[in-house]
């Protein structure tokens, strides 16, 4: 009996020391045949992104090894979540949000993920705080609210590349920058497409400095690209290059209907066709500038509405 007790004690001690010794590692792995135990090494991968995150060092990465679903996750640290080419890593939200990012000052990368909704899933990627966010080659579809939403209270840098956001009941991509003095969301989007969403394709509010290159917004019930003011003193500014807006309510809209801040939209070498309104400026503190003569704005219900100012290539508007 004494022997048994000793053995048990030894086992417990062993187990505890293992736990203590088990440091977070730089690279962890998940697989559909894995289990949520241990530290997610390639030979013993874990099953969910959420568990793997607890085993991943700050600034590390989580890799998906096999095709399948890995469940909703909450990110609070610097990390890269990666689905390599050849692997389909899905995240399906049956309720709530699929990916939640609340990581003040941290660097987060999402790459190659397919994020979708069944049942009552709310938002695809929701960001309340982050230092730098990269969304690369992701697909976000079918959510009851917004596809990708950043609702920020502090400055952040957001990069969205080669991503498709489609068939969400709310907006496709919504960036709501911080409103405090000296804070701003700096946004760069390249080759990103927002299609057939129930509200706006691309939406920018609050303090934002955004640049869009080769982005496409089509078939949305709301506006293709919109920049709007919120609180007094805020400046929302977006520059669009080689973008396309078709079959939306308005194609490109800048408005200062609420708040009292300033909204600016500049558009170059872009297209607005088959929208109810092509280019639209509304309100007294919003500015819509175009690179003179380079935009095709034809075949809309109304091509131009409000004050659209042409600027030359060498002019500083």
């Amino acid at each position, binding site marked *: 009996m004494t022997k048994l007790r000793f053995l048990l004690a030894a086992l417990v001690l062993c187990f505890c020391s293992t736990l203590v010794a088990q440091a977070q590692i730089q690279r962890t792995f998940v697989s559909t045949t894995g289990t949520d135990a241990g530290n997610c090494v390639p030979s013993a991968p874990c099953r969910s992104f959420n568990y793997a995150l607890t085993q991943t060092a700050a600034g590390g990465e989580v890799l998906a090894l*096999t095709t399948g679903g890995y469940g909703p996750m909450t990110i609070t640290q610097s990390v890269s979540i990666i689905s390599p080419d050849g692997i389909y890593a899905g995240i*399906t939200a049956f309720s709530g949000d699929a990916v939640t990012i609340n990581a003040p000052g941290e660097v987060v990368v999402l790459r190659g993920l397919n994020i*979708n909704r069944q049942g009552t899933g709310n938002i695809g990627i929701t960001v309340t705080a982050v230092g730098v966010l990269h969304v690369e080659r992701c697909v976000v579809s079918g959510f009851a609210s917004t596809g990708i939403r950043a609702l920020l209270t502090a400055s952040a840098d957001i990069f969205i590349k080669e991503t498709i956001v*489609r068939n969400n009941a709310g907006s496709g991509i919504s960036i709501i920058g911080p409103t405090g003095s000296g804070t701003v969301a700096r946004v760069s989007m390249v080759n990103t497409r927002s299609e057939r969403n129930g509200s706006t394709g691309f939406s920018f509010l609050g303090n934002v400095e955004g640049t869009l290159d080769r982005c496409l917004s089509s078939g949305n019930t709301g506006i293709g690209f919109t920049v709007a003011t919120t609180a007094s003193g805020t400046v929302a500014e977006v520059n669009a290059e080689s973008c*396309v807006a*078709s*079959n939306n309510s308005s194609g490109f809209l800048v408005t200062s209907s609420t708040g009292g801040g300033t909204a600016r939209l500049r558009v170059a070498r872009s297209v607005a066709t088959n929208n109810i309104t092509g280019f639209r400026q509304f309100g007294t503190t919003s500015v819509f500038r175009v690179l003179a*003569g380079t935009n*095709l704005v*034809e075949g809309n219900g109304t091509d131009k509405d409000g004050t659209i100012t042409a600027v030359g290539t060498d002019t500083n508007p």
Partner: protein
Amino acid sequence: MLTLRFSLRLFALVLFAFTIATVASAQTAQRTFVSTAGSDANIASLCSAANPCRSFTAAQGVTTAGGEIIALTSGGYGPVEITKALQITAPTGVYVAITAQPGTAIGGTDAIRISAGSSDVVVLRGLTLNSLGVASGINVTSVGTLHVENCVVNGFTQNGINVNLTADGSEVFIKDTIVRNNGGGIFITTSTGTVRASINGCRSENNVNDGFLAYNRSRVTISNSVASGNGNSGFYALSDVSGTTTEMNADHCVASNNPFGFVAVGGKPPDSGGTATMRVARSTATNNTDTGFAAFGISFGSAVFESLGDNLVRGNNLNIYGVTVVTGQ
């Protein structure tokens, strides 16, 4: 003993009832899987990742409406008719083919037929469709919203992607897709109302007829796309039925080595009176053997061709015919 027997009988009865209930509930899964090593008998396991099915058709039967089928291994998965909201995805790195031949094609003609409901969303992603003598790669007869992404459609005798609808209000999105060596490239029309399409990053090559054809009652916006070596027009807006309007807006597109580069044609005897509009910006038409940019209003039909004035239209037999230069914003 009698009690035991009775209990056993009761157990059998309960088991029987349970089996019935299981069958009757027609369970489905949100995400199902197919593999070349799979078996369609695995519908009993709902085509899980561990027990994948062999064909898209079997997997569709156990996939929840709005769910998705994922292909796990490279190989062929056979023609499929999609009848509900569904996504079929081949991840990058997995070659997923559907080869259609007369004996296996849907209706003897199609690799994929889409006959879904008027609000259903269908997504095809990463598929390669091949023909051994049948008509269409993707033949769409009814759908709410269709997304075709990263697909290759090759060698069909008629249109590679044939969107031929009978209802109003459908939306079609085709992106990063190659359509080559078919009878025609991408064809879009409806017989009622309007069909709207957004085409981005596509290539239509060496098809017998047209590269991209916006036909009666379609509104197409196409960007960053190439039509080359086709047997008729590269980019074509055609209204040949009285009262129809058709529109194609092209940005950053290239048409080369076709007879016609970009063309709008309204009216065509004996049905005349349609209106076709083509608008082109930042695009190139070169080495087309007939005309680079052309608008033809035939009989009582009308055709409008608007150029933003920033296109390269050179080296064609005839460069422009009936083109109006419009001022950009």
